[in-house]
């Protein structure tokens, strides 16, 4: 595996400079039931396709940002600071 990511602070760097934070999921806002809590803690969508995920510039500025990446080709569509990320498209 080898590709480039654009850190919103530092610019384009090798993927090895970054830490992977997994796919973006939403923490429940209210106290969840056991099943919902288990799904939040342990289940991931793990899509074969475009996925929104967390990355941290581990060897650089340590900024967390979100990216959309195609898990099949490792093509990175965009990266952005979380507050500037485009809203997630409604599932079709």
């Amino acid at each position, binding site marked *: 595996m*080898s*590709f480039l990511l654009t850190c919103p602070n530092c610019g384009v760097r*090798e993927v090895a400079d970054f*830490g992977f934070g997994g796919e973006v999921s939403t923490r429940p806002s209210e*106290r969840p039931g056991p099943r919902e*809590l288990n799904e939040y*803690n342990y289940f991931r969508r793990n899509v074969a396709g475009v996925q929104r995920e967390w990355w*941290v510039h581990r060897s650089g500025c*340590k900024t967390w940002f979100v990216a959309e990446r195609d898990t099949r080709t*490792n093509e990175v569509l965009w990266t952005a600071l979380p507050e500037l990320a485009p809203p997630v498209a409604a599932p079709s």
Partner: protein
Amino acid sequence: MKRLPRQPSERIDRSKPVTFSFDGKPVSGYEGDTIASALMAGGRQVLSRSFKYHRPRGELCGCGQCANSLVTVDGFPGVRACGEPIRAGMRVEHQNAWPSLDFDVMRATDRVGGPFTPVGFYYKTFIRPRRMWPVYEKVLRSAAGLGKLPKRQEDREWVTEYRRRHCDVLVIGGGVAGLSAALRAAEAGADVVLVDDDVEPGGRLLVEGERDHARDLARRVADAGVEILTRAPALGYFDGLVPVWQGSTLHQIRAARHVTATGAIEQPLIFPDNDLPGVMLSGGARRLSSLYGVAPGTSAVVAGVGDSAIADALALHEAGISVAAVADLRLASADNGVARGGPLGGRLEAAGIRYLQGMTVVRAAGKTGVTRVALARVSPDGVAVPGTVEDLDCDLLAVSGGWVPASSLLLQAGARARLDAVTGRFLAADLPAGVHSAGAVAGDGLREAAELSGTIAGATAAASLGFGSDADVADQRERLTELGGGATSSDASSAPGRAAAATLDAPPPAYATDGKRGGKSFVDLDEDVTVKDVEYAAAEGFDSMELSKRYTTTTMGPSQGRFSQLAAARVLSKVNGAPLEEIGLTTARPPWVTVPMGALAGRPFEAGKRSPVHRRHRELRATVKWAGDWRRAYDYGDPEGEAVAVQTTAGVIDVSTLGKLIVRGPDAGELLDRLYPNRISNLAPGRIRYGVLLSDAGRITDDGTIGRLDEDTFYVTTTSGGAAAVEQWFSWWMATWDLDVQLTDVTQGLAAINLAGPQARTMLSGLTDLDVSNEGFKYLDAKQAMVADIQCLLLRIGFVGEVGYEIHCAAPHGEKLWDALAGAGARPFGLEPQRVLRLQKLHVIIGQDTDSESTPYGAAMPWIVKLDKDQDFIGRWALEHRDGDAPLEGALVGFTVNGGPVPTEGAVVLDGGEPAGQVTSARRSPKLGKTIGLAWVPNSLAKDGTPLAISDAGQRIDATVTTVPFYDPEGEVLRS
């Protein structure tokens, strides 16, 4: 073999002799020689012994591709003698032969064992009885193999520099196609890197009489701004990243576009005893004579399948080597234009070289080198036609079985090998986006076609990045099509041209033979696989390319199938009666060239760390070991004495490795309340609280102390190993929550030294004006003060159970602080005594005594979870669901061993004879005079006084459960 008169294209400097040693004896060559060319000029024909049969082997390819010339250089095995330039004083040794290269006792496996050691022999024979395998293995390992690594660690070390290079276009291969591509792309404005494995770019131009043109072209390429890396083979293709190995540097080159111009590889012919020294590829023989002025033989026979062999024969003749005959497999027909050697035939005649139309080699003979060959016409399945066999004397048999595109990198990039029906060659088709091919690897091997296809590839690659336009290479495209090139462009219009090109070569039979018994016909020289081996394997059912490869190990040797893959496919095709395209080719995996592990290995991303006080530990002769990324002092030679000193007088331990974070801002308390299960925001300035971090599943991930320095500022410590993860954990939640708070990681900016023991207070009072009385500086107080004239933050905490002060200061002052504390009489103690001391207090070490299942309830700290606090905190929901129930993961308890040994960490706790838990820590406590520990046990056993059965590697150890600390259970010492 001898040195020829000066050759027009030679790269040796005859005015500069260089002396090195081979097997201890001096050998001299000239500057520019390779090890192989110098050895051959000195008369040595045998360079190695083969892998399995220990047959003598000589030079084959002459260009660093085959495994015949593997030698050990200055202790490093696996160096290719035909690619490695000589240096004065280098020590070269042979491999895989004993007692000497010229007399190898293991040759017996060939002479005697041949018929008894077919492929698969080892798997079948040495599997029973199983207990004998270690014995068999030892013998087999010493009998087979390719060199030995140096024994001493310091002799094996390899220092590699990693370099990352980003460019627009990477051109792999510096032949005429690669140079043309690089030139065109660079002239269009692209940033171009060109890599080549030879000492200078030029490829076949250098060998084939166009050295000056090659150098002129290379100079223009360099002038156009291309970065040229020589002696720098590309190792593979990884999602667009191409590692390029150049001596002690590994270039990691990432390009937006790739032009693969890796050329083609000349193939050997298969016939009985085709591995005799003196049997060489004709291009290799030509390379040796033209570049190094070495005659690989004095009297040559050339056998080929096309024009390139005839050209090589003429070149050998011009170099001064007597060529007796050229056997050309091609039969003349009315329209193929190859009668009497075609266009080059006239020159053969003029040179007085016999031309044998339609003949090929059916046997080589000789003892340690070829002395005689048999030539014949052969039937389509390769058997000599009776009455056509002719024997010739020679000491060099130069063979050429045609050329195979070196398409491995393209296949690794995702291209498919497809048989081009017109030329009968496997070409890489369906190239992925951004990957181009040019020159012989694309089927455009002829000089003009290669140059055209290189220019086109360079223009296309650059234009796709917005540099220039590829419209202005339309003329070149047209001309290339006329020449029969551009096959990989899947442009059908070039088919007629390719048909013309197809007459250049005739596909050889799978193997040729004179029909007599005896002799081995090798398909794969690296692994000593013969035609018979492949046939036997097929008869046993290993009849597909992928199965055959794995069973016979064909193509799995150091030359990665360069010379054997097509040959093996042809044999399988013959056995199965299936066409070649159905047999297919396998993908040679990276690395495409042999590379020392040392050039690839290393820890490039995790730097090893040393505390700012590390020098003191070295001076004190500490036992230093790795602890995560850190080098740490385990003890100073007397762990028991050090532990006793801490409990009787005082000790100092370097805890600079602790993670240290400053959390500051109006919302700092709010952030910490959300991250820790206990209350942090109500902590008074100047006070400290212990905290554990949880995941949202309620599991413990780290622990440490939180001190409030002022209203807005908290000083947070973490475990040594968890510092980076906690920093990421904090900053990740901060990226999610909109809080007014900043995080600063000061782990490596601050030193920290823990002073602990009954006399710690007295010692500290001598170094500071701070009121250190128990009233002035209470347990869990944080104070900022000068200690030994150094600005320090003092935390009164007690991990080791005695009155203790964890003193933090700027890293550059660490040694000075250490010296002051040690000078006041505190004895340095290491990690090992600290572990004993904390165990007496049942203080857990996260990651040692807890794992990914441990909750605060199980880990005996339910008091830290404040479910009554208002904030939601990470892990709260999971803990609420389990509140009041027995923890699922069991319970962490202390235990005392009732006599017997110290259990190993990880020893099994039994419940009713069944495994039910494990020991996580155990030590002998000198203070208590007994063995104590921590273990996870079933909840039913988690009561004081419960007997505990421990099974440690089959040994039974009896222990008793204790849930209160062994030492100072009420914490009176700590608070005194």
